[in-house]
């Protein structure tokens, strides 16, 4: 049993939407703890509430009821401005589509969240270079997104997500737009990130990605139906 305080703690989390005037619960009384250094893969059929859960965990959406603490902060109580700031500094996002700014270079894309967080230019340039080197793009820092392959763009997106040293990295189908070989490279990158101490929650349909995670949560109809730890936590080898 992990005795370290969880990075993320959800208690009886619920999220209901009005569909044709009737409330429909996408997440129904979900309780979950994620500890530092874990890599959790959330899997399940389409419409089971995975994406809704990820939106709640990422302070993008608000729960209808229940409690959600991330690094001890009550996300549900945050107003829009606080939640935006919290997403900037506390959470890293990797999307299925990379959403890089086409007019910016790889390094500038990585610098964007740091610039928003008012990090000094010299510091953020160094950090961007360090992160791009970490994800294997040290030689392509000045390339624009259109000059990069899909896998490379996703690597830039991962570097961007790590820019402000978030407590939690959330990834929504990070291999969804990649071919099999590039997907494997991305899984290897996530594995390395996790070994180096990054706490990761991924939502995926990709069996290989789910198999690589330390813990796999199965969801169905808005609830967790299975929660398996496949690999125990190890001491991190580095830091990102």
């Amino acid at each position, binding site marked *: 049993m992990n005795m370290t305080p969880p990075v993320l703690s959800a208690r009886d989390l619920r999220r209901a939407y009005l569909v044709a005037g009737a409330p429909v619960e996408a997440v129904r009384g979900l309780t979950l703890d994620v500890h530092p250094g874990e890599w959790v893969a959330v899997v399940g059929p389409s419409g089971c509430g995975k994406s809704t859960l990820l939106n709640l965990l990422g302070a*993008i*959406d608000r729960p209808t009821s229940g409690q959600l603490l991330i690094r001890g902060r009550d996300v549900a109580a945050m107003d829009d401005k606080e939640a*935006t*700031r*919290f997403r*900037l500094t506390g959470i890293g*996002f990797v*999307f299925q589509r990379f959403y890089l700014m086409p007019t910016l270079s790889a390094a500038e894309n990585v610098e964007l*969240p740091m610039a*928003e967080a008012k990090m000094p230019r010299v510091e953020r340039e160094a950090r961007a270079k360090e992160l791009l080197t970490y994800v294997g793009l040290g030689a392509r820092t000045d390339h624009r997104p259109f000059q990069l392959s899909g896998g490379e763009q996703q690597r830039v997106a991962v570097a961007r997500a790590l820019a402000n040293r978030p407590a939690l990295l959330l990834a929504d189908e990070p291999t969804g737009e990649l071919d099999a070989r590039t997907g494997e490279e991305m899984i290897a990158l996530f594995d390395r990130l996790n070994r180096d101490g990054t706490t990761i929650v991924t939502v995926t349909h990709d069996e290989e990605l789910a198999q690589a995670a330390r813990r796999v949560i199965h969801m169905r109809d808005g609830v967790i139906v299975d929660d398996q730890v496949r690999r125990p936590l190890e001491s991190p080898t580095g830091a990102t």
Partner: protein
Amino acid sequence: MRTLLRWWCTLTGAVILTAPVLRVQGQGMRTLAIDERLATASGLSLGDSVRLAPMASAPSGQWARIGAITRRSADPSEIARSEYRVRLHLDQLQSLTGVGDRIGRFAVRTQLSAGASPDATAVGPDSVSAAINAMAFGFRAYPAAEVAIETSATFRVVNRFHRAIGIITIVASAIFLLCITLLKVDERRREVGALRLLGLSRATVVRSVMLEASLIALLGSALGAGFGAAASAIVNWYYQGVYATPLKFALVTPEIVAIAVTLSLLLGIVSGYLAAQRLVRTAPLELVGR
């Protein structure tokens, strides 16, 4: 021999005459002045002698030497007039026409007498012309300002027409710029939505969109001013050649450029703000299409 159809004679008054001019050689004669257009068209130059006669068929005339070639002032009201101008000494003109007391119009310059108060409007041009008209028979006096207003009526209409075109252009440009900005911003809904999800604030999005729209507007106004200056130069070069005048037909002044840039910048800021507001009022999840 070169024949000229018409000329203007101006000394204290101005009289329209028709007469032939013949080119001959001669020294020690009375002088006259011709305008540049006449000199160019007839090949006359300083020192040339010409014979003046009231009728083309007159067997004799008076000889005069060209003592000056004058350039017309840039007067828009005269630009389309094709006649030539010759200035003669009054006595020679009178003897030439044989009507020594006939004057079409003349100008009187009024000025305050020494020691008179500037407030003494009772002796101003209006009162002088009123006094002249009170005793005039067969003619009428007008203050210079009234004449200027009368002769510039056409240009005031043209000016209003240009202003109307300008206003229509500005309104159309504003709508066009707003539509373009909205479309360009809409193309980046997903990227902006992702940035919002990553934690970029609404203010940052609004600022960056406004900055981009302003820069585009500034660039557009600079290009527009450059295009306007180039077009003006071409128009001036062409019509100054056609009418043989130094008159400027199209002007792009620093004031016009300043107004254009300011207006464009304002439009850019407003359109950028409206487009950005439309964007940040939409939920980030909706922007990324989830």
